[in-house]
């Protein structure tokens, strides 16, 4: 029964309030550094550079007072997949990429284990370890609401080029609002079907069809419920005279404002 308690499971990342300097840092600065760091970890293909970045991330985690156990728990879940991909890469990846001279370390029939293959797998391991720790550092030190506000700030200038920045930030705010409501609705749908004796077929991967057939009477009403909620909210917004987007959300709160508050409604 515990696995249908959906509301308890809708957590995007885990926020850990240790009130460190990273927690107090302006969310816009955090997002900027996060984007630069993500780009670096994604595109740099040097083992040494990734190693240096990993040390820097670990130092940041230490100064943010994140317990090591906490960071390790996040990584632990990904380790089996990392190992699986590593093995697949060693088995199937070309042992000597074009234009690179590789030294074979071990040969088994037509398969060679070369230093290039080992380096590729090492880089894969390091890159994903860095990215896992890096994203969890952001979610540990920043609440989802703060993240939304930060994104809103970065999106607002896009309006000038025809990209609806304000609308996108309103959509994000509404999404956060809808998530717990929908989780509760989903829980209600599953529980009501369970009360009717539905078999969710948790047991095996081979019971695909059975599982699909059991899910349909819950998934279709779930999607329709979401659309109905959206329709109701749109009517409520229009009834209150919504014709554009106001910027009052930013006024309440987390971003320091300069000058007056913009009203565009």
């Amino acid at each position: 029964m515990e696995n249908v308690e959906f509301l308890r499971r809708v957590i995007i990342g885990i926020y850990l309030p240790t009130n460190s300097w990273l927690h107090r840092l302006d969310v816009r600065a955090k997002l900027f550094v996060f984007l630069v760091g993500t780009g670096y970890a994604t595109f740099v293909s040097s083992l040494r550079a990734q190693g240096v970045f990993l040390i820097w991330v670990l130092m940041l985690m230490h100064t943010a007072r994140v317990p090591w156990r906490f960071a390790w728990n996040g990584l632990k879940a990904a380790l089996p997949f990392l190992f699986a991909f590593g093995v697949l890469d060693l088995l199937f990846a070309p042992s000597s990429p074009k234009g690179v001279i590789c030294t074979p370390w071990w040969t088994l029939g037509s398969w060679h284990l070369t230093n290039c293959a080992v380096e590729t797998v090492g880089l894969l391991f390091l890159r994903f370890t860095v990215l896992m720790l890096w994203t969890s550092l952001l979610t540990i030190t920043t609440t989802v609401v703060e993240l939304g506000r930060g994104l809103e700030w970065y999106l607002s200038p896009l309006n000038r080029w025809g990209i609806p920045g304000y609308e996108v930030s309103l959509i994000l705010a509404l999404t956060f609002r809808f998530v717990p409501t929908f989780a509760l609705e989903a829980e209600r749908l599953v529980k009501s079907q369970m009360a009717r004796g539905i078999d969710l077929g948790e047991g095996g991967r081979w019971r695909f069809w059975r599982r699909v057939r059991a899910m349909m009477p819950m998934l279709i009403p779930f999607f329709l419920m979401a659309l109905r909620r959206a329709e109701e909210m749109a009517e409520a917004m229009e009834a209150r005279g919504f014709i554009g987007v106001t910027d009052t959300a930013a006024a309440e709160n987390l971003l320091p404002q300069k000058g007056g508050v913009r009203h565009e409604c």
Partner: protein
Amino acid sequence: MNAKFSARTITVTAALSAVAVVLGATQWGFIPVPTPAGHATIMHVPVILGAILEGPMVGAIIGAVFGLYSFLDATLPIFKDPLVAILPRLFIGPMAYYAYMLTRRWGESVASGMAAVVGTVTNTVLVLGMIVIRGYLDARTAWAVGVTHGLPEIIVAALIVIPVVLMWKRVEFGRGRSRL
């Protein structure tokens, strides 16, 4: 400033983005299949629905939210690469929308079924394509994953998208409402 999006477009986009997040966070959107990764996902279905009901831009925004969520909350390490997690998801909505518009003359159910197929194939092909381009898997393994995951995902997506679109449009036109 006049809003470029109507209130309805904004709320439908937000609601379907929230559906994608809930499907992922509760693991409800994962259907077990007999493959190494263990499950087929239906988290892209709200993107297809958004594109059919509100247009390609809405599809792209829901795709971005879905991508961002899978990037921030991934347990599968490959999705910690934003080029794999976010970029391909932006194309699901527009592709599904154009498939829907091109096949609309053959009826609503055929068109929404085509949108489901094209949207799902876009997701699978672009994500796996990016995984191969980034060098995380070789092409042969990616093919195997694509076929074993893509087919169940296409079937489930079509099974959800067709009835939801038909029911929703009928409600909108005021025909099929139940009377007490």
